[in-house]
């Protein structure tokens, strides 16, 4: 059984303070936009209202910082150590997808992504690779051939093909 730690009030307070800081930055940027005449009728009016309210509510939540009640395994606890490791791995895979997509194209990038995800979920290598290649080609067929959309073919493969 993977152990999970409870999320404390202090941690909620920090998260809320970070969000409030973003709100303050947003409000500061809003002050640089024209407010208009009558007041509020230009591009800066509504953002100013939103920003000020965001900061006010943010400050309230930061000061009060309600501790989340542990409802289920989704709310109120931090991910277990093993889960945190998986999250970092998924984040890295997502980053890699963005970087590799223009180079390797949709099929190869999706194949690599799904294989890595399947391995992470405990699939044997061969099954992971077989399922991933079938699905990658199926998705390409669905989006490109059925829905007639354009997806990256990959600079690397284009270079190989066209020299």
């Amino acid at each position: 059984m993977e152990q999970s730690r409870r999320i404390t009030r202090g941690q909620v307070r920090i998260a809320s303070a970070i969000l409030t800081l973003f709100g303050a930055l947003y409000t500061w940027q809003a002050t640089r936009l024209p407010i208009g005449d009558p007041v509020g009728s230009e591009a800066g009016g509504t953002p100013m209202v939103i920003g000020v309210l965001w900061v006010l509510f943010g400050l309230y939540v930061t000061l009060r910082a309600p501790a989340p009640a542990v409802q289920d395994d989704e709310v109120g606890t931090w991910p277990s150590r093993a889960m945190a490791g998986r999250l970092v791995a998924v984040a890295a895979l997502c980053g890699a997808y963005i970087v590799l997509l223009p180079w390797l194209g949709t099929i190869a990038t999706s194949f690599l992504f799904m294989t890595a995800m399947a391995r992470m979920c405990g699939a044997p290598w061969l099954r992971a690779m077989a399922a991933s290649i079938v699905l990658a080609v199926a998705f390409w067929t669905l989006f490109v051939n059925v829905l007639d959309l354009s997806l990256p073919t990959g600079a690397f493969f284009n270079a190989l093909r066209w020299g």
Partner: protein
Amino acid sequence: MDLLSAMASGFVVALQPENILAALVGALVGTATGVLPGLGVLGAMAILMPITLHLAPVTGIIMLAGIYYGAMYGGSTTAILLKIPGESGSIVTTIDGYEFARRGRAGAALMICAVGSFIAGTVSILGLSLFLPFLSDAALSFSSPEFCALAVLGALTLIRITGGDAMMGMMMLLVGMALATIGVDAVGGSTRFTFGTESLALGFDLVPVALGLYGMSELLQVLQTRKGFPKAESVRIRDMVPTRAEWRRAWPAIVRGSGIGFFVGLLPGPGSLTSTFASYAVEKGLARAHRREFGKGAVEGFAGPEAANNAVATSALVPVISLGIPFTPNVALLLGALIVQGIQPGPLLLTQRPDIVWGLLASMYIGNVALLVLNLPLVGLWVRLLRVPQYILVGAIFVVSIIGVYTLRSSMWDLVVLFSCGFAGFFLRRMGFDMAPLVLGLVLGPIFEKSLRETLFLSGGDLSIFVTRPISAVLVALCAVALAAPVVFSWVKRRGGWTKTVPAP
């Protein structure tokens, strides 16, 4: 155009081969996604929405509505077979539906739910067809101040009813509204908050944000364990026919549930959850001979709530179609899809694009028929879907989401938004921040800003316009009630004036 001819024109649209196909595919894919534990209706809709946006507006909306229905139906299936509610409206079904299934009557429970959902959907669609023209006529007297006040009322109501901390919900709503202002100003055409970057000038599209916050963060949750999905017992077709006694007990509950669901859906609030609990309470109250059976597999205990849940799904569309204001996150996504498709919901929609409105209504009917005639025979397939290894499904759903988002604008920025929202949503939800207000803020933000700026132009900056116009004044008063009511209730409760009277299921 009278009601019958309007409905007939709707069926002409809905019965186009591509629209029938869209309704069927939507219902099937929605059910498949709804069946998978961990992905709720919102997650299913968010993941599949990008695909629907590449179709013609009517076809795309029909498919999305099919996904909505299908995902709800799929949620009931797992509620009965696995005691896992696919979404909040199926929570009540897990009580008696699961217990009924444990007696070896899972097939009959699924059949009763499917027929009940069909009847409820039909009742609700008929009600919607009758209500909509009246409400749309009334909505024609709405102008910018009314829409502004209505947007605020919709937002306040949703925050009050999502069940989380109201202040945190308010904060998330404002974050969503702020995100909506980034990029090109829809009213003036200038850019805002872009810091000179082209990516931020593109703004935050609803699809990657909603998909990240709901779809991706739920997928990350699925990775919590490597156990895979729970296994369900097989259901044979021949076991699906309820006995005469079961039918006799089910149908009055279905009729009552349909009525309750339809009227609850018209009100702002968590219609799905409220209507199912209300239906359960009514059935338990009315049951004399079988009251002791409740909680142990009473037919009425799941037939009524399931019908109510389905009726709500349709009637909740009334405020969206007639006023352009969503009261629940599910319909907020539908509204977002309409806007992305270039359709502005609101009082003029019925006159400007009757093909969309009546086509959608007619297609709902077709979707209901599709769910009935396709999903019951396919129940074995849904059970088998739970046996597909988790390692295949998780990666595949991730990739469909990524490609779907990328194809919207061929923009890497949208993928960055998708992943960022996925991880941010995952952690914020754990901390008790509700994501529904954020998505609603993103949808309502532009409506609120446009109507507020128009109002200020109209009044020369005089805010008293909100209280001098009768409809607007009523809406502002309702906003005040939405703000003050919980404070008053808690004060009265603290003084011991009331005791909690919510019926325990």
